[in-house]
């Protein structure tokens, strides 16, 4: 049986083969510093950047699962990036859900059309640039969340690296030891009515292993709540910030700060348990708006 991973590999091969003479760069499974999950493939060709999405079985079954990674990718990638949705016959629901949001929706059986689209300098499809105002607001939210986490680190005297065991060996240089990864099976509960945080979302994660899966659940919940899509433009419809109380800083598997950056980009700030009496102050800081 062909899986979505096989299809992504097949698509990468096709694009690499047919776009070589156009000096294109095809990156399967890209690793964006601010996204836990971004597009499945990106193509850079001359002045154009394309982001391809091939929905997983979970996303095909429940299209709203794709929304957070689409919304955050729209905010994280350059505004001119053309987003293409590649669907299998079982992807009709997801195609309907995003009927006006992607620059184009391409059936798997007609995938060679992606080569024509990528080769066409004038191609826009249904694409619309994300307005600069929305990009600026996303950056402001990231800055606010990072500021709160740096305040927490300073107050508690526990820098982000405190969560990481370090040993010294070799030439006397301390070398980091990979974190022990354990998988959480539960979904964090997000409370948006807590008086103390004044409308800022709140999640208690003291008994969680705050790994990529838990952070992703937080992010997805928040994006689904706070963004609406209108012709591919993500408009904020509610407060997109949140505070999550944790025992220790989450650490990424390869990039140790990635979970912190990705959460902050989606509006979440982690607060260590010992600083939870400052929630009101942190919530105010998260709500700081652009100076006019």
């Amino acid at each position: 049986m062909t899986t979505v991973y096989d299809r992504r590999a097949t698509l990468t091969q096709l694009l690499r083969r047919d776009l070589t003479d156009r000096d294109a760069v095809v990156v399967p499974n890209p690793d964006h510093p601010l996204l836990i999950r971004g597009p499945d493939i990106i193509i850079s060709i001359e002045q154009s950047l394309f982001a391809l999405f091939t929905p997983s079985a979970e996303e095909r079954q429940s299209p709203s699962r794709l929304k957070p990674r689409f919304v955050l990718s729209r905010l994280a990638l350059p505004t001119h990036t053309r987003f293409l949705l590649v669907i299998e016959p079982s992807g009709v629901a997801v195609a309907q859900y995003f009927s006006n949001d992607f620059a184009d929706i391409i059936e798997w059986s007609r995938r060679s059309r992606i080569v024509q689209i990528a080769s066409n300098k004038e191609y826009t499809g249904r694409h619309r640039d994300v307005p600069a105002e929305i990009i600026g607001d996303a950056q402001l939210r990231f800055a606010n969340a990072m500021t709160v986490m740096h305040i927490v680190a300073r107050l508690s005297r526990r820098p982000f690296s405190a969560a990481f065991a370090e040993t010294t060996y070799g030439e006397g240089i301390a070398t980091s030891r990979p974190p022990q990864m354990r998988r959480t099976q539960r979904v964090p509960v997000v409370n948006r009515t807590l008086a103390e945080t004044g409308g800022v979302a709140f999640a208690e994660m003291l008994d969680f292993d705050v790994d990529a899966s838990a952070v992703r659940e937080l992010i997805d919940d928040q994006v689904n709540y706070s963004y609406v899509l209108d012709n591919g433009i993500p408009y904020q419809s509610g407060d997109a910030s949140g505070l999550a109380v944790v025992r220790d800083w989450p650490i990424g598997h390869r990039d140790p700060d990635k979970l912190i950056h990705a959460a902050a980009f989606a509006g979440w700030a982690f607060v260590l348990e010992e600083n939870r009496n400052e929630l009101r102050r942190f919530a105010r800081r998260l709500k700081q708006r652009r100076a006019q």
Partner: protein
Amino acid sequence: MSMPRRVATLRAISKTAGARTGSAVFVQIDHELQELADVIRIHPEKRKNLLRLLHGCRALETALKEMIRSHGVTPRHSLGPIFRQLSQIPYGQPGYLNAANAQRFGRTVRIARNRYTHEANAFPRSTREAESVLSEIEACFALTVR
């Protein structure tokens, strides 16, 4: 962090930014990013970490200057003023960094550059420290090079 997938992602974004700004300097930035991926095989660890920071800082600093230049402004020489110039780019436009981000990234990059490129026998204390600084460098790159 700078594993191959991360660097490939940044190179793809950077390549398009180069084509859109019409700046040939992005070819040099691309070489610098390629070096960032290539040094992953170097031993000993402390030399690898130093080189990763060196290539990461050089790629970012040059890219930031090109983003400023793309707005018709001559970039300043020192890092502090460069980050101030980025915060003066119109809200949300390519290259724009808000004041808080500019301050934080500016401090991280300045400290790394000053410590590891100007001081004899200075190396990152640990792989974790090098990865953390690189993570900030790469986040700054992704926010500004668009």
